[in-house]
């Protein structure tokens, strides 16, 4: 059994083991590799100054997946089988020795030409995020920059640079494809790893079965997927995790299956991967799904991790609850499936038994229905919701036959609104029903005040979102986010 993490940093193959493997990627780059172009702005995945580019082989062994990741909340042990690039790898052309390559990467040139840097500290992170975005035709404009903060420029020149350099950057990525594919194929991808990193023991399974066995035999271990939350426990809470088991390396869980029952999202699938399939199933949810973290967070964080974590302000659960999703939990070789809403018991308490892990979430095909999700926060992108509302109304012959309404940020868990649902069920969605639903919603929840919003605001908005739902029903919905 191998016991070292292997990956490529630019043109250098790297093998890391021992305590070094438990370092954050950012610290490792800056302290151990003197790659100081990658900056620390916040050390919690919220500013993007540490953004690096990561390339992985998809489950098909062929497709390359390019991601922008926050190096501060990635740990070296998460990099096995990965090609990473930092800002230092862009200039001078790539692969090395290509004399025809320009001295600067097209994205770098564009940033200079458009005056995209002022203090320059956030610039490398922006360029890496922009380079990743250029490889993804579905992303552009502000969404491509949703995980990066700049305090100097006001963003206009950066957006202009992104637009200008996207085609050349896509071409740049294409020329690297073969080299990277060969490198990643040559890395061992199939054996589980066990790393003794001093204070932390790390298990890296390769299959769901291996993961199941590890979980069952080590029920106290911390299951780690994208580390978008656990990274903050470590970096900010000063926590040392005695035992970590990775879930995202089980390649047979890195699946998004669409069949006649619906959509099954495996434990290893990230939000970025799931977005297209989720959007096909829940087209109306796309604007909200795109506001779930910035791009780097969506590239690292998994759908199942967002659920398993049990945060009352996770954006995934209310949307999935409204869509009547179910969850598969696995212990060893036994599995049980439960409605997603039943998984959340209380604040910090989920129905996950010792040794179990969330293996998949299933979203059924949706009935003909009115589906809406709304996220209310101080900032549009990369903010935690003050309120997240998801509703599904099934209307048959003018009567609401089924209502599913779930909120995040309104209670200790993501929670349905039984009184409001009852107020709407079996009635036409008229002014009377609306008024009843509005009153009911204030009975369904007793939110708290925190720095994101007051309890009063949360309740008022919850009421008003029933109005918005009514407007949607009437085809008159309006939003400033359009």
């Amino acid at each position, binding site marked *: 059994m191998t016991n070292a993490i292997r990956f490529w940093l630019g043109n250098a193959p790297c093998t890391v083991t021992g305590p070094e493997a438990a370092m954050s990627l950012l610290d490792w780059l800056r302290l151990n590799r003197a790659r100081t172009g990658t900056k620390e702005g916040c050390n919690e995945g919220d500013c993007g100054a540490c953004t690096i580019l990561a390339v992985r082989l998809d489950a098909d062994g062929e497709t390359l997946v390019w991601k922008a990741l926050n190096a501060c909340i990635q740990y070296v042990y998460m990099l096995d089988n990965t090609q990473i690039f930092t800002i230092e790898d862009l200039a001078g052309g790539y692969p090395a020795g290509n004399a025809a390559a320009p001295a600067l990467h097209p994205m770098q040139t564009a940033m200079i030409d458009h005056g995209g840097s002022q*203090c320059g500290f956030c610039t490398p992170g922006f360029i890496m995020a922009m380079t990743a975005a250029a490889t993804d035709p579905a992303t552009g404009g502000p969404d491509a920059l949703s995980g990066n*903060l700049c305090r100097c420029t006001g963003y206009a020149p950066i957006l202009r640079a992104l637009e200008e350099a996207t085609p050349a950057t896509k071409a740049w990525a294409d020329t690297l494809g073969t080299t990277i594919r060969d490198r990643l194929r040559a890395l061992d991808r199939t054996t589980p790893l066990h790393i003794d990193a001093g204070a932390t023991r790390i298990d890296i399974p390769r299959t769901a079965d291996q993961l199941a066995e590890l979980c069952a035999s080590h029920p106290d271990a911390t299951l780690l997927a994208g580390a978008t939350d656990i990274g903050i426990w470590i970096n900010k809470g000063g926590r040392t995790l005695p035992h970590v088991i990775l879930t995202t390396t089980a390649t047979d869980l890195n699946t998004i299956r669409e069949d006649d029952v619906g959509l099954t999202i495996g434990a290893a699938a990230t939000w970025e991967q799931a977005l297209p399939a989720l959007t096909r199933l829940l087209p109306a949810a796309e604007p909200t799904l795109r506001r779930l973290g910035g791009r780097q967070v969506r590239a690292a964080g998994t759908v199942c991790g967002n659920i398993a974590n049990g945060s009352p302000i996770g954006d995934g659960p209310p949307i999935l609850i409204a869509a009547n999703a179910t969850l598969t939990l696995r212990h060893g070789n036994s599995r049980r499936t439960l409605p997603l809403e039943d998984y959340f018991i209380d604040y910090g308490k989920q129905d996950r038994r010792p040794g179990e892990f969330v293996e998949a979430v299933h979203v059924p095909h949706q009935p003909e229905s009115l589906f809406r999700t709304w996220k209310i926060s101080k900032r549009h992108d990369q903010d935690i919701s003050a309120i997240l509302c998801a509703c599904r109304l099934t209307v048959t012959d003018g009567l609401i036959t089924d209502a599913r309404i779930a909120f995040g940020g309104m209670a200790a868990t993501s929670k349905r609104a039984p009184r409001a649902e009852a107020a709407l069920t079996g009635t036409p969605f008229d002014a009377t029903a609306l008024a009843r639903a509005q009153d009911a919603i204030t009975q369904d929840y007793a939110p708290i005040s925190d720095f994101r919003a007051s309890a009063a605001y949360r309740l008022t908005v919850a009421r008003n979102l029933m109005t918005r739902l009514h407007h949607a029903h009437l085809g008159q919905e309006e939003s400033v986010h359009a």
Partner: protein
Amino acid sequence: MLERSPKPVVEKPTLHESAALHVTGTATYIDDLPEPRGTLHLAPGLTRIAHGRLVSMDLSAVRAAPGVITVLTAADIPGQNDTSPIGAHDEPLFVTDSITSEGQILFVVAAETRAQARAAVRRAVVETETLDPILDIDTAREARAPCAVPGRTMTRGDAEAAIAAAPRRLSGRIVMGGQEHFYLEGQAALALPGEGPEMIVWSSTQHPTETQAMVAHLLDVPANTITASVRRMGGGFGGKETQANQTACLAALVAHHTRRPARLRLDRDDDMVMTGKRHDFAIDYTVGFDDDGKIHGVDMLLACRCGWSADLSGPVIDRALTHADNAYFYPAVRLRSLPLRTNTVSNTAFRGFGVPQGALAAERVIEEIAFATGLDPNTVRLRNVYENGQLTPYHMTVEDSITAAILTDLARRCGYDTRKAALRASNAKAAEEGRVLRRGIAMTPVKFGISFTATHYNQAGALVHVYTDGSVQINHGGTEMGQGLHTKMMQVAARVFGLPQSDIRLTATTTDKVPNTSATAASSGADLNGMAVLDAATKIRDRIRDFAAERYNADPGTIRFHNSEIHMETGQGTLVESFAAVVRQAYLARVSLSSSGFYKTPEISWDPATGRGHPFYYFAYGAACAEIVIDTLTGEYRIDRVDILHDAGLSLNPEIDRGQIEGGFVQGAGWLTMEELVWDKKGALRTHAPSTYKIPTAFDMPRVFNVALLEDVPNRKATIFRSKAVGEPPFALAACVLFALSDAVASLDDHRTCPRLDAPATPETVLACIERLRAGKSATGHGTKIEVPATDADPVRDPVG
């Protein structure tokens, strides 16, 4: 009308001097400096209560932690335990007894690695006695808490009588929040001990001379032993004018005791909890006016939260007073300040330095008059803008006012009148149809006084060397924080010598090259240092010219430095020699090719005791118009369009100035909309990281953003190439965003009531304002204060599990 320049003298736009370094990740910030052998890494231990007393501190477990080399406290300071930048002696580096804010420093740990230092800090056993904290303006006023610095009154005429005699009068209050700088590079310093008492401190500071002085008196050594140096900062915005000092002092103290290099880069959360922010204000106003919207008299009381020490609160609130007129003439006026001491972080400089706060109150007064009279706010503005010859509240005669022209020009360019009419119609239609979106538009000007109010700060030095190969090195007292100052300074030298910018090298700002410098602040960097660079470079150029005249028998009056060459008219006709060749000859002829330069701003004076004088050399002007749309169900909004017309004189670098305008505006819009600082009831800052404190992202910039510089209008004053300062004024332009939001809210009762929308206008604040208007209540609310209980766990600050 606007005075046009006969000939364009604006330089061709040049890149930011560090752009290529920025984009390749090779621009060096403090934490990127290569590590000298034996470097120690530091972490501070901080107070976790806002008010009380330190009873005991057991640091034995900290000292015993792995990798820890030393732990230092106040007892280890050889000199003064004081970092007050104004000599108020109210800002100890380390707490010794009294705790007056969360985030004060108890001790500092030095360890072999940063991770070890941070882990060790958590082992401290600290016992404190807690007292009730005074956290905000209202509580401080009720408690009659002492002021952080003395309040001041600025008067001209008899405001009370003028208001009483005016046909109409009204009173109100505007409340506006503070703001975290959120420079992307946090506070950082590296101290390297040298021979004897010598020490070099690399610090991310806007004010190296002050950092040098603080370290010197901390260590009780003369200033000539300490060198403070900074090549660039990853953002400053005022947050590193004084706030860099404590980080530098901690590093220096450890280096002093251990004789090892010591590095400290604050964790972001510590940085946000420890360092001062923009002052939040509550401003009470009474105005007397007439039916034409003309102001007769103004009385304002400007209260602000200073935090636990004076820091720069005095000058900040003075600047709020001097700009509480924004661009408007108050025939009679009384302005009073109330700088309140509170048990919160000590507020400090932030881009605009009190101007945005004072100007916002002036714009609210204009808005109130517009609602009261039914006039368009722009009409009210134009009826009250300064005419040349009128006196400010501080008795300075305005001589360069172009506000009316800029407002009129911008209104025409952006179609204000037509668009406003269309928005009103669309709002009316939306109301009829029961729709929820409402639109608003507003235009605000800015008139920004340029110069430090502390007159002695208005001086600068530079040092220029020409080497024998013809290359030039320049150095000056200003610091680079992204604003492009160094680029502009290189342009100045390049122009004097007729060289391309690539032949000019600019080196780190260092107190051993140019001493006794002023903070790079007050937008003055280019004005002051540009003239000093010009002075130094011109001296050398003149020496080279005189030498060339003699050597080549040329008429000195004909000698031109151009295109890396020196052109001369001699008896034998035109002679062209390369700059480098002539320089080499000059060297051989023993001509000095090095010079210092100096500049002091003329004409200015200021008497803080009377609040009168001529504190500003000139004013920078601008105007902006914002159009927004709000959702009346949730209070959410977006900025659809912004048009800006800004006065940078004859811009030294239009591309860089445009960057300052766009960036300043977006930062200002952040202050007025989403950026909200929340302290809980015990005085713990709950918005101490970007996860909880939200600055604008790319999505939040205006959908349409038109920025224009006023063209061909030179500064009337003899500034560097007739340019104007541009760092801060655009920040205040963002006021139009708040008033556009207010305009949209006001549509809910048909513009009968001034919504009195306060800042930050988060969706919650906007919705509360909407609900007030809907309920038909006269708008008496002041913002929405979220009461945050202190008991709920903070997963970031409290160690988990």
